């Protein structure tokens, strides 16, 4: 209901947004009537929610075609891009954080945290543009567009997604590395780590079994929330790399007051957010026996 109301609160009416400011008022009125957007909001809401719970997402106003035809491919595309970026940034970020913590305050730690910070504050349209100019326009190593040809295999699709993933990696690397580093330092300083070392366990075993396991807990919640950003918040990257993802789908739908697409898009992001949060909680529990067994230990 919030999604519905939020969408409709946008100023202006649908017919006017579609036909433009110079269209005749009669044409606008006719179009609103055809689309049903001249009916009372409550009627429209009951109509929409009724269809929504039965899985019918409705028809796009501007494209006069089923919303599902746009929503599912866009979600799939976004998931692919997020997966590639995720697979690059998570290992890199964790590795960076671990290195930073192990070599605390030494040169490598400084370099990692400074580059991480710098990369995080460079907006993705700047890094994206620079990457495109260097690697696509001048060197021709990568394609300009993230969209692979229609019949492309998995590898070609992956190849098209490498360049657009890099700006995302740059933005998230510093964040994940910093969280991991803080967690690691805390865990390294903890009593149980000292105990394990004093027990005579090899250093690698201590880090793997005692330190990492505890240090990664906060990192996991960060990653899970960032995944939703990776899927839904990439309007700029999608536009720059000409990619049909859920971010630009929602953005253009909001601009054109294409409510059926807008509502379905936002709902799907909401569902995704819930799923990711649950997944993160499950993973958290798996790594942390204290929570798994009722939290009394």
């Amino acid at each position, binding site marked *: 209901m919030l999604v519905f109301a939020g969408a409709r609160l946008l100023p202006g009416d649908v017919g006017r947004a579609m036909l433009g400011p110079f269209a005749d008022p009669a044409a606008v009125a006719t179009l609103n009537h055809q689309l049903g957007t001249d009916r009372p909001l409550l009627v429209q809401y009951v109509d929409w929610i009724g269809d929504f719970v039965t899985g019918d997402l409705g028809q796009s106003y501007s494209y006069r*075609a089923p919303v599902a035809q746009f929503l599912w491919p866009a979600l799939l595309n976004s998931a692919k891009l997020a997966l590639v970026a995720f697979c690059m940034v998570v290992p890199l970020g964790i590795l960076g954080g671990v290195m930073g913590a192990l070599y605390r305050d030494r040169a490598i730690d400084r370099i990692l945290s400074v580059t991480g910070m710098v990369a995080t504050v460079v907006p993705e349209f700047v890094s994206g543009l620079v990457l495109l100019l260097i690697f696509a326009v001048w060197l021709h190593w990568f394609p300009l567009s993230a969209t692979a040809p229609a019949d492309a295999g998995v590898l070609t699709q992956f190849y098209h997604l490498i360049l657009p993933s890099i700006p995302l990696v740059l933005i998230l690397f510093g964040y994940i590395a910093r969280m991991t580093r803080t967690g690691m330092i805390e865990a390294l300083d903890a009593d149980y780590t000292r105990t394990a070392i004093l027990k005579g366990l090899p250093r690698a075993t201590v880090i793997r079994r005692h330190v990492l396991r505890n240090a990664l807990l906060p990192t996991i919640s960060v990653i899970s929330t960032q995944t939703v950003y990776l899927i839904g918040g990439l309007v700029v990257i999608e536009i720059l790399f000409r990619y049909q993802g859920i971010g630009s789908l929602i953005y253009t739908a909001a601009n054109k007051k294409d409510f059926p697409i807008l509502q379905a898009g936002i709902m799907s992001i909401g569902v995704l957010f819930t799923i990711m949060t649950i997944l993160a909680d499950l993973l958290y529990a798996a790594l942390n026996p204290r929570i798994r067994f009722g939290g009394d230990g």
Partner: protein
Amino acid sequence: MPINQKLLDLLRKGRSAHENHLIDGLIDGRVSRREFLRHGSVLGLSATTLAAVTGAAGFELLSARRAFAAPGGTIRVGQIVPAAVIEPVSVADSGGITVLSQVAETLVLSGSDLTAQPLLAESWFPNEDGSVWTFKLRPNVKFHSGKVMNADDVVATFERLADPENASNALSALKGVLSKGGTRKVDDLTVEFHLDAPNGGFPYTVSTDNYNAVILPADYDGDFEKDMNGTGPFKLVSYTPKVGAVFERNPDYWGDAPLPDRIELHFYDDYQPQILALQAGDLDVMQQVPVLQGIALLHDPNVTIISTPSSAHQQVHMRTDSAPFADKRVRQAVALCLDRPGLVQGLMQGKAVIGNDSPFMPAFPATDHSIPQREKDLAKAKELLDAAGGGFEVTLTTEKYLEIPQYAQLIQAAVREIGIDMKLNIMDQGAYYGEAVPGNSPWLDSVMGITDYGHRGVPNVFLQAPLLSTGTWNSAHFNNSEYDTLVASYIAALDLEAQKETASKIQTLLLDETPIIDAYFYDYLTPTKAGVTGVEPTAMGHLFLQRASL
């Protein structure tokens, strides 16, 4: 070349009074060769007649040279993604028009030189007062479905567009010009348009200027995207909303065989990625780039820019019915602050022509060039402003679109010099237009604003809705009965000299009253890869590629 009187007499035979008057004008020197060609084309004189008359009247003929262009190949075009379903009756954006122009055609082409050229109509002529126009259709034109186009299809097309029940985007262009029931079949290849009022520029209403007016089969059912069944030079292979479209050569095209084998349209949400793709060689043509976004391309040796003159402009309005602009001296003072040559060179990179605060851009045939150009004159501006009560604070409200925010800043800096303290309120485009009705639209309600007006082949639209006392887009709230009368007679005039005379009066009146400032008219820029030839854009968004060659 001497005048060939015998040939002229021969050519004059059977011509109407208006046409002969125009020929007289050419011989007397009252009408230039250029004006003769433009206006003659509107009256329906064929290109061969026009060429013969100019030749007989002693003018050099333009040689019809056409460089040799190789057929074949695929032309890859980048364009902004169409804003909505591709549907000729409702299409309202240049992205949709580009797609439409591959497959469907209008009766008349409004050429880049502002002449009306035959497309699906072979010829046309008005009755004595210009209230009925008769169009002869081209024979043997086939739709992609194989059906031959005839008068029934043309009548059905215009009845569909003029029907208020159809949410037709052409309604605003047809209002007061052509109503439902006004289009009548005479025979299979002849159609008569019975207009609401005499109209000397009617051929432009059925031309590419009115992009919704592509001829569709009489039994068109509303689902255009399925097969895009038109008469155009290319046929649809595939269309994927938001992604792109592929077309192939139409082997049954009525004109010269289209050169390219295939056309690929690639949709983009923004200009920047298209510029990169053009520079990387992934695209051959970029349908359009605004000058500010395209600066990188203007100096790129691997890119050719097709610069199409247009009447598109950013109109500055000042509310004539309320303070501080109720006094025309204040409005004149503001207009006198602008350095127009500086705007054209600096803001528009030279891709524009200077305007004189009326919609009559220099290239319109009726424009009177003897009206003095308004130039920057701060002393006079200060004098006028002081006489009207001195400086004040005001807010300029406008939209975030193209170079308008930068233009607004330049105006702000310019008027500061005479003591006007201007605040800027730059809004999102949708918010600026609002509901597009007075009381609910910053566009129509603001004391001062800047509004984008797209290209038109004739100034009629610019003269009416934004400036008539009854005009629906009259953001200046201009209410001048003398102006209203002049515009009515300008629109009805069939005769170029009558048009010129009225235009001169309108230009003088607007320059004096200054309800609006039209400081420049900007070119429509279409970048292509160097070496690509034969690409023919219009400033409306059409992209004709049948003569394109790599």
